[in-house]
């Protein structure tokens, strides 16, 4: 793998490019594994800051689990978002879909049914609502030939509005204790939420890197016309990508329901921005055709660790926001350099 990426770097920048320490440093950061190395370094630096400023409070097992628990919900959505963006699309409605799924899965009707039968009903409801929203997005984008930005913007408004109508703007407390016990519980001392995130991340990595579905996603995002002329059903594939992110939102709603023990129409507010930011700083090209799940996971971890370090040091959320903005800009600047090296426009 290392040799392959080295060759690629060499191929992208032929001839007399290695002089100077700066270019050597950027050369390390280019290439698929090299870019992840940059993210690892960034995360380690953040942790170093955490250790120096907060000491034991930062490195304690409980704190690490807090970070991971925080990361898990946005992480699941970000993995789904990685697929949509790699496939050349964008989804602004993820936060609203999370809200609608959480509300729908916690209505009195759903919870009564769940009490009478099994708590899994709540999970199924959330996943189906998510998938349904994604399907609507996908069909309008692929078959209705509308811009993804517009369609998902409409869904963002519509789904949250529908969530407010269903919940009547009230907080719906989850009373199915088996549900909160299982999803909100622990396995071998590790929160189930974190386990779910880990499973989703691994499954997402396999799906993107080892399956025909993943290959087609890269082709559709990289050059939709070439994909179409190679016999790939681009419209159907695009639709599936939005269904996939919808399901991820449904799952995130389940996790939020367990963590907060309540469903509300304000769940997932601004989640779309956090997810897109995590995906992009992870190294997935916003223009599509290249995506990395590992990068996305690092992106999510960097943001949540940042929040944690700031909180431990009693810094306000405004300062956090400024730091986040700076990180996004630096990450995208780096990404463009890498893209230019590989001979394709950013």
């Amino acid at each position, binding site marked *: 793998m290392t040799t392959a990426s080295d060759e690629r770097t060499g191929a992208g920048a032929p001839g007399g490019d290695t002089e100077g320490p700066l270019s050597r440093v950027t050369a390390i950061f280019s290439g698929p594994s090299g870019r992840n190395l940059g993210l690892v370094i960034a995360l380690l630096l953040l942790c170093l800051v955490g250790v120096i400023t907060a000491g034991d409070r930062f490195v304690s097992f409980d704190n690490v689990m807090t970070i991971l628990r925080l990361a898990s919900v946005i992480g699941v959505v970000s993995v789904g978002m990685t697929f949509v963006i790699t496939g050349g699309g964008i989804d602004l409605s993820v936060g609203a879909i999370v809200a609608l799924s959480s509300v729908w899965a916690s209505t009195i009707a759903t919870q009564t049914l769940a009490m009478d039968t099994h708590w899994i009903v709540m999970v199924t409801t959330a996943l189906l609502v998510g998938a349904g929203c994604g399907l609507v997005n996908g069909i309008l984008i692929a078959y209705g030939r509308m811009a993804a930005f517009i369609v998902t913007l409409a869904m963002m408004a519509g789904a949250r509005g529908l969530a407010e109508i269903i919940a009547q703007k009230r907080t719906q407390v989850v009373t199915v204790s088996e549900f909160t016990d299982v999803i909100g519980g622990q396995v071998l001392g590790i929160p189930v939420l974190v386990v779910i995130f880990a499973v989703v991340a691994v499954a997402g990595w396999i799906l993107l890197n080892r399956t025909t579905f993943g290959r087609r996603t890269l082709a559709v995002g990289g050059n939709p016309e070439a994909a179409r002329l190679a016999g790939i059903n681009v419209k159907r594939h695009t639709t599936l990508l939005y269904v996939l992110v919808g399901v991820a939102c449904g799952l995130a709603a389940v996790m939020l329901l367990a963590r907060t023990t309540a469903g509300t129409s304000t769940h997932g507010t601004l989640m779309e921005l956090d997810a897109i930011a995590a995906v992009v700083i992870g190294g997935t090209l916003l223009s599509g055709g290249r995506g990395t799940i590992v990068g996305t996971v690092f992106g999510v971890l960097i943001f949540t660790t940042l929040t944690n370090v700031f909180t431990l040091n009693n810094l306000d959320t405004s300062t956090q926001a400024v730091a986040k903005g700076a990180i996004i800009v630096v990450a995208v600047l780096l990404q463009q350099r890498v893209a230019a090296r590989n*001979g394709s426009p950013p």
Partner: protein
Amino acid sequence: MSSKESEITDDAGREPLLRMSGIVKHFPGVKALGGIDLEVRAGDVHCLLGQNGAGKSTLIKVLAGAHQPDGGTIRWHGEDIRIAGPQDAIDHGIATIYQELDLVDGLTVAENIYLGHERARWGVVARTDANRSAAELLRRLGHPEVGPDVEVGRLPAAGKQIVSMARALSHEAELIVMDEPSAVLDQEEVARLFSVIRELAAQGVAIVYISHRLEEIREIGDRVTVLKDGRTAATGLAAAETPTAEIIRLMTGRSIEYAFPERPERQLGDTVLEVSGLSRPGEFRDVSFTVAAGEVVGLAGLVGSGRSEILETIYGARKAQAGTVSVAGRRLRPGRVGAAVAAGVGLCPEERKSQALVLHESVARNISLASLGRFARGGFVNRRDERRAADDQVRALDVRPADVARYVGTLSGGNQQKVVLARWLLRECRVLALDEPTRGVDVGARTEIYALIRDLAARGIAVVVVSSEIEEVIGLSDRVLVISDGVLLHDGPADEIDEHRVLDMVMEGDAA
């Protein structure tokens, strides 16, 4: 020839408006222009003729400041000048109207005309002023019916052409270069365009007019310059009197020796591809032909004749309005690429980079793209099998460098084309449609691609080739179809037709 030229200059008793001499332009690996001479006088309509690749586009780009020549001189009003960039060309009074018009659809006619040199006062666009002077320009062009405040996107092709010309005039151009302006116009619109050109010439504006249609050149042109292989084959010919045979002789003739593979003498297999009565309104009508296993059939015709559209319709990338396409006796569902691919049809499209390749993916992944299912079990891609199969193809087709992990974007044009061919070989297709298989491929690699295509046919694949280079179509094919204006004019063995005949048919056929 040069003595005759100077006579003409002396006849006119003055220096020509533009005199380009010995213009040379190299591109990496290609000598696009190898010494071009061109003289244009004020008030002349000077026609530029030449086959594809003769250097017409490069020459007008040099004139427009888009390319810098590597050698030669440009004299303008008797003074040596250097055209540093597009803006410089415009400042000198040289305007170019490209085939794909560079207008902004969302802006009005007047806004387009003054784009980049807006009529403004303190940064605020003076709209009434701009509209008034735009209307004046349009009146001068004889088209007062084009409203200056109409959105350009709503205008027909002819209207857009007029706007482009008005823009050229707004820069007070003394020389207007028009690249195949009639290609998108109907007969009536062409007639109106011609009256505008005559009007401009009468006002002393020089026009360089590029067209493939001899009929038009006879009608509108004063003088003709013929380019061939980046050189001036003849210049200053009288447009009206020079015989067609003479012009075609100047345009053709083999100067670069391409080694075409031998046509094997053998029995053809069964008919694999059958196209019957295929039509798409505005593109082509009632096209019927067959291709047998092991046969190479070439489609010759000018740009815009419908040849690429026919190919894409066979492939299902465009939906036929009437007619059928059958592969091995089975009719394909129209407008479905998936159906065509499933039936064993492969397409190497015209624009390799934008239509065929996923540039930031590896060679292996580009090759396997159409046959992923074969390497997958339960949706999982077996990457070792995939890599091995890609490796085999790369070796068989001699793709260089023979490294399937490389990004396909770093390969040369010829090797990229091989990757696209490998994709369909891996898929084991029965019909292969090739659109401009050697575009952007250097001379050495061309011979390889030709041999490869012949080789594919020998394996029993039915091959259909489209190329704008007539020599290539004839040299490569067993049978040649001639298309003009969407109509199949001729279908016959390649060894019974030559370049002259084909050119004759498409050039005269267009005018008829």
